[in-house]
């Protein structure tokens, strides 16, 4: 940490969210509340089978219902959009099913009516005739099955690295990505010990409390789309592509999101809403219920086979990783999760010989995509669980085992990229310190046993991506930011205002951040993967600096020596003779990047930054029931400089609590036919206030990201990384039961304890 850190005036000191009053008074603007004059309401009719040929759809009864405006199927969509397939990596998902259905819940038809109640009633009268085909649900089975979810692969033309997959038939493998380094075979032969384990994760859903919603109004050869989206820029590009229109014929407007977590990315309901508005010549609202969200996008179930060769000192010499991602019926962003997170499968460790295979697989389940962590939580769960197993078997303290192996700055990651500004050991040490890892620990011996666990994970910031921003200074000197970063609770608007404040000297509270609107705000790749602080932070910084340069030039022109941030308006009056004019600064940011080698996955520059998260837990297990209580949870991250420490704190504990829900309570349960048994909150429980650990600690280590804006980088996901493995380790420490398949349920612990008892007899 020798980098010189410039002093801050505004950043680094906590600032409450700019929209705080609107949020506590219920006046904050969400797409949920958008209502347009003459707006119709859509209700989606969904497939009741996991895989089948669509023989016909009888819409007559639904059409006869008073108040129904229209009932539409894939055939109707084809009339206005000849190639109605969308997706960010593969163009494989039809707006409404055509020929085939590929998962239970897939949209096959839609009823549009004057009221949502009528649409709902009539949707129940639509009869889809589907000839059932055998379905494949499990990712391992799908690798060797002769049941194919898609007849052939349809990669999106925009990605050069996917082009070779075009038209490949008779496979469920959408993509395979590898990282190869050193001589793994040889290293395994010379190893002191070899550990081979399999870890599994389950399917979960984001459950944003504002359910997905899009309203489209297409008229005069222009599509206006109001949508709860994390990707307004992508949505514009994708809608324009589907329609064969120019991008400037499509307007995407978002508002605050009532949660996103990765489920409101790319396009989801937007293409359907646009198509329906075109078919009906009226504004149409497509709004999902909580239950329907479970049939829209989810988190990948995974199988991770991990094999490690270790020397007698506990140094990891070589590692083989095979990660199989169950992407469900449509690729969504799964192939990118497979690649961009897949290459971190060896973990935060300095391992000379590495062989990673990461495979995206289609199955007949609801699609999986981005979910807070972008695949990293699944990977950390496996490699940190194995670290615990190895440390235990070799009699090495888990922290010590990790410290012997972690990557430090200057070392090469498995991809060949030299680590920089990645405070891995600092995070690990700080978690241990906060937890009191080296203090005596009382495990107790009675019915209730205590245990503890610790771990750390890393994520590479997704690359290469671009952010563009504008900072406008009005004639009275007030400033606004135009950018397409979507504030879904992570406090991005507030941070962008703070950055403008830092550069221009105006109070952050006075800066207005415009809700994303593709007619007003420039391009941004997406609000995902904790990339906004880094990428958009830079773009807004550059835009503010550009605005400042223009203001300085203006000051010189009108003979003002020093500009006063509190009175920028003077410059405009002097130049234009009245309160008139606008200064617009622009900023474009795209970090450097080198594509990984096709064969080896090696790259000198795989990511602009690494995000680090560590967790420690203390748990108490009831040996009679397997029920457990998390007594303490400590979470520590490296987010570079905490630019808005108040929001950083909340993001750390929020991410950990959300992840804890997916580890302890949540699981989408499917039967053999691929029917989801628990769509909706009555049977899919997310954490409530009574479900969180008794004590929660959080901290961002004192770190500096030298290529980040003001030393900062992202934080929204880091605290998810270490949660699952730390809990499993704590349970093993307490009662000797090793969980290898999430979620961690009391019944599994109970069963494990009974098995252990029987083994002792």
């Amino acid at each position: 940490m020798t980098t010189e850190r410039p002093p801050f005036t505004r950043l680094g000191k906590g600032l409450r969210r700019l929209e705080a009053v609107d949020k506590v008074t219920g006046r904050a603007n969400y797409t949920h509340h958008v209502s347009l004059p003459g707006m119709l309401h859509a209700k989606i009719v969904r497939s009741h089978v996991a895989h089948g040929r669509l023989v016909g759809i009888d819409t007559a009864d639904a059409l006869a219902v008073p108040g129904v405006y229209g009932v539409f199927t894939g055939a109707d969509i084809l009339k206005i959009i000849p190639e109605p397939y969308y997706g960010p990596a593969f163009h494989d998902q039809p707006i409404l099913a055509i020929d085939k259905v590929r998962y239970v819940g897939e949209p096959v038809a839609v009823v549009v009516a004057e009221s949502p109640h009528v649409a709902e009633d009539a949707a129940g009268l639509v009869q889809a005739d589907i000839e059932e085909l055998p379905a494949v649900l499990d990712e391992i089975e799908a690798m060797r099955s002769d049941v194919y979810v898609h007849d052939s692969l349809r990669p999106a033309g925009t990605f050069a690295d996917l082009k070779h997959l075009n038209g490949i038939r008779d496979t469920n493998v959408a993509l395979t990505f590898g990282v190869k380094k050193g001589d793994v075979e040889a290293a395994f032969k010379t190893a002191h010990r070899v550990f081979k384990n399999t870890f599994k994760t389950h399917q979960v859903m984001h459950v944003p409390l504002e359910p997905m919603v899009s309203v489209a109004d297409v008229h005069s050869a222009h599509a206006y789309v109001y949508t709860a989206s994390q990707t307004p820029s992508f949505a514009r590009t994708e809608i324009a592509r589907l329609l064969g229109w120019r991008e400037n014929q499509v307007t995407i407007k978002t508002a605050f999101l009532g949660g996103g977590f990765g489920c409101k990315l790319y396009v989801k309901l937007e293409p359907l809403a646009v198509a329906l508005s075109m078919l009906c010549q009226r504004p149409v609202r497509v709004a999902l219920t909580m239950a329907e969200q479970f049939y829209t996008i989810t988190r990948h179930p995974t199988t991770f086979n991990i094999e490690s060769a270790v020397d007698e000192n506990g140094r990891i010499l070589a590692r083989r990783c095979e990660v199989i991602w169950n992407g469900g019926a449509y690729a969504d962003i799964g192939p990118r999760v497979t690649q961009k997170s897949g290459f971190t499968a060896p973990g935060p460790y300095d391992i000379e010989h590495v062989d990673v295979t990461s495979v995206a697989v289609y199955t007949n389940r609801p699609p999986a995509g981005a979910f807070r962590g972008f695949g990293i939580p699944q990977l950390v769960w496996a490699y940190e669980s194995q670290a615990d197993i190895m440390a235990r078997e070799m009699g090495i303290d888990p922290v010590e085992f990790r410290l012997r192996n972690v990557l430090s700055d200057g070392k090469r990651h498995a991809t060949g990229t030299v680590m920089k500004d990645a405070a891995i050991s600092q995070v690990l040490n700080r978690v241990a310190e906060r937890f009191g890892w080296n203090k005596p620990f009382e495990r107790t011996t009675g019915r209730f046993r205590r245990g503890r666990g610790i771990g750390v994970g890393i994520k590479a910031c997704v690359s290469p991506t671009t952010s563009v921003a504008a900072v406008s200074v009005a004639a009275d000197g007030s400033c606004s930011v135009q950018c397409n970063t979507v504030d879904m609770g992570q406090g991005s608007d507030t941070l962008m205002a703070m950055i403008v404040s830092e550069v221009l000297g105006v109070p952050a509270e006075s800066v207005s951040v415009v809700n994303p609107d593709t007619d007003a705000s420039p391009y941004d790749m997406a609000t995902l993967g904790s990339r906004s602080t880094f990428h958009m932070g830079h773009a807004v910084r550059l835009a503010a600096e550009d605005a400042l340069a223009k203001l300085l030039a203006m000051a010189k022109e009108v003979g003002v020596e020093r500009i006063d941030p509190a009175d920028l308006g003077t410059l405009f009056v002097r130049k234009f003779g009245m309160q008139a004019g606008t200064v617009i600064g622009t900023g474009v940011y795209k970090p450097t990047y080198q594509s990984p080698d096709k064969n080896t996955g090696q790259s000198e520059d795989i990511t602009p930054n690494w995000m680090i998260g560590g967790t420690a837990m203390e748990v108490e297990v009831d040996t009679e029931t397997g029920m457990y209580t998390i007594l303490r949870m400590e979470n520590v991250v490296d987010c570079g400089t905490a630019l808005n420490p108040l929001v950083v704190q909340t993001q750390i504990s929020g991410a950990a609590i959300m992840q804890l829900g997916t580890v302890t309570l949540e699981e989408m349960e499917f039967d053999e036919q691929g029917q989801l048994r628990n769509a909706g909150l009555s049977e899919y429980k997310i954490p409530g206030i009574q479900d969180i650990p008794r004590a929660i600690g959080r901290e961002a280590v004192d770190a500096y990201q030298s290529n980040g804006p003001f030393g900062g980088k992202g934080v929204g996901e880091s605290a998810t990384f270490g949660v699952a493995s730390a809990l499993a380790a704590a349970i093993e420490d307490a009662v000797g039961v090793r969980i290898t398949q999430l979620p961690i349920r009391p019944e599994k612990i109970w069963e494990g304890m009974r098995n252990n008892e029987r083994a002792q007899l």
Partner: protein
Amino acid sequence: MSTHHIDIEFELNGRPERRHVDVRDNAIDMLGRCGLKGARESCGQGLCGCCTIYVDGAPASGCLYPAWKLQGKQVETLEALNTAGGELDPIQQAFIDCGAFQCGFCTPGFVMMTRKLLEAHPDPTEAQIEHYLSGNLCRCGTYPEITAAVRLAAKRAGARD
């Protein structure tokens, strides 16, 4: 299958209100048309608390409450806390001061239930906080700050008394 409408009269945030409602409308559908957006439907099963309103003074899940059943009732929503548009309610202020929300979609429900909690238990125990707020979900996981906000609001109210 056809829809029926009915006229109802009730009191909304202290003012008389008359509405023409679809018998299928729930309270949230109707309140939205009244321009009140604080209570909002999320889970549709009365489990998340986003739609919390008071009916005759008692908390209710607006998403499960048929609009027509509000005939003759007193209905109160989050907006009643600051109709004058001036100062915030101390609970709202405490939520801001503690940073007790992220996306903010669940916040109105939490504020409404915190109000009921502090009415009944001005100095609530941990268990009382959990009991009153267990029907409200925050997917952003802001519970530590929410608990802090409840305590701060209670403390400030105690200091005033």
